[in-house]
């Protein structure tokens, strides 16, 4: 019984294992990769394929999401009540802060009008949910549940309550991939809030660490300083927290410091993120016609 079958399939194995087929497929793959790497001709193909693959993402995401929801549903009433109280208190505090902030905002616009610069406030923000899927652990990327259908665009900054998390790297109709600021290939233009010194914060592949390289030794910077986006480059809106300085390293032999930052955002803990549409969105879009 097995004899004829193995004989029969050995023909197929010879066909399936032919070097010609391998070279054809390799060629196709290489062409695809080069096209994908160098341009955006494949975006439509990718969009179509991603919609087809969406059910798999949903199948992975929904059970996890549902189990969280049921856990919340069956949470103790007391715990809920105390949490509610706590949140209400925090909301009161936040509201008090906000009224003060509103006054400051008015003052800021007035002063800016005096200086004849454009007011830069009022970025549009929408909440997106993180899809509960793992991507390659070697890169720091996340997948969110909004895409071109919600007007998400390439290079769009995303943040959480604490600060900047990353930027959109790939957009599909109903989902998008974002690269986090802690990814080893990511860099973000920043300034030190206290002194206004500009620099660039690099990711290192660790969720709790960012690095400012080549800071002059004479620079006025010390642990605890808040570092915010500078808005240079036009991709990230100015003034979003990026991290706080934790350590200054003087390396012997170079005239520079390397400064370690702790990201302000809860990079590996947030389940929801804020998609930010900067006020001067057109500038951001044109700055981002090139992929990161």
């Amino acid at each position, binding site marked *: 019984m097995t004899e004829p079958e193995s004989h029969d399939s050995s023909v197929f194995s010879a066909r*399936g294992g032919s070097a010609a*087929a*391998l070279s054809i497929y*390799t060629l*196709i*793959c290489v062409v695809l990769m080069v096209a994908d790497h160098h341009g955006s001709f494949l975006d439509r193909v990718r969009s179509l394929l991603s919609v087809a*693959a969406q059910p798999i*993402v949903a199948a992975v995401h929904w059970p*996890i999401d549902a189990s969280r929801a049921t856990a919340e549903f069956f949470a103790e009433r007391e715990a809920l009540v105390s949490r509610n109280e706590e949140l209400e208190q925090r909301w009161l505090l936040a509201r008090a802060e906000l009224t003060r902030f509103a006054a400051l905002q008015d003052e800021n616009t007035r002063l800016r009008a005096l200086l004849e610069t454009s007011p830069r406030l009022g970025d549009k923000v929408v909440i997106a949910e993180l899809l509960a899927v793992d991507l390659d652990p070697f890169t720091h990327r996340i997948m969110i549940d909004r895409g071109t259908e919600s007007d998400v665009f390439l290079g769009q900054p995303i943040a959480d309550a604490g600060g900047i998390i990353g930027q959109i790297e790939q957009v599909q109709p109903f989902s998008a991939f974002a690269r986090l600021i802690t990814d*080893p290939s990511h860099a973000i233009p920043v300034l030190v809030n206290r002194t206004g010194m500009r620099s660039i914060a690099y990711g290192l592949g660790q969720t709790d660490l960012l690095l400012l390289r080549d800071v002059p030794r004479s620079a006025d910077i010390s642990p605890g300083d808040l570092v915010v986006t500078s808005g240079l480059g036009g991709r990230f809106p100015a003034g979003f927290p990026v991290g706080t300085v934790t350590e200054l390293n003087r390396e012997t032999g170079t005239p520079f410091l390397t400064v370690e930052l702790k990201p302000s955002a809860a990079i590996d803990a947030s389940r929801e993120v804020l998609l930010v549409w900067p006020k001067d969105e057109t500038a951001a879009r044109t700055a981002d016609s090139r992929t990161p």
Partner: protein
Amino acid sequence: MSRRKHQPLAVLASILVAAALTIVPLGETLAWFRPYWMALVIIYWGIESPREGGLATAFFAGLLLDVLTGTLLGQHALSLVIVAYIVARFRLRIRFFPLWQQALVVLAILLNDRIIEIWILGLSGRPVPGWQALWPPLTAMLAWPWVFLLLDEARRRTR
């Protein structure tokens, strides 16, 4: 033959399951050890049913992974096509190996795959993984006997 009728279905189902397993969240530490499930499935079908487990199947399964994980379109496709080719080339030998020896073959194939992957990442200027990249082939080797028995059982039931 009618008894082969359901085979494509089993192949498709196993590919979808492998795709889902590829993105199931495992937490930060466990994620380093995630075996390359899709390669295991492709290797299995390459050994047992070369009609369905050929280069074309590997190619499309790879494209699916590329879209799911947002890698370069064609990256996983190339890696799986090469895996399928190696399996097809040595199929008649691998097929009659005992399971533990097959597991060693799986390790060798996946280490080779890692080298190709690092080469592609390097060429396209993306960050190259460190030594942790060697864990997934090892866990895949350990997972192989179980994957093999499971898929064998599934195949027997569906036909």
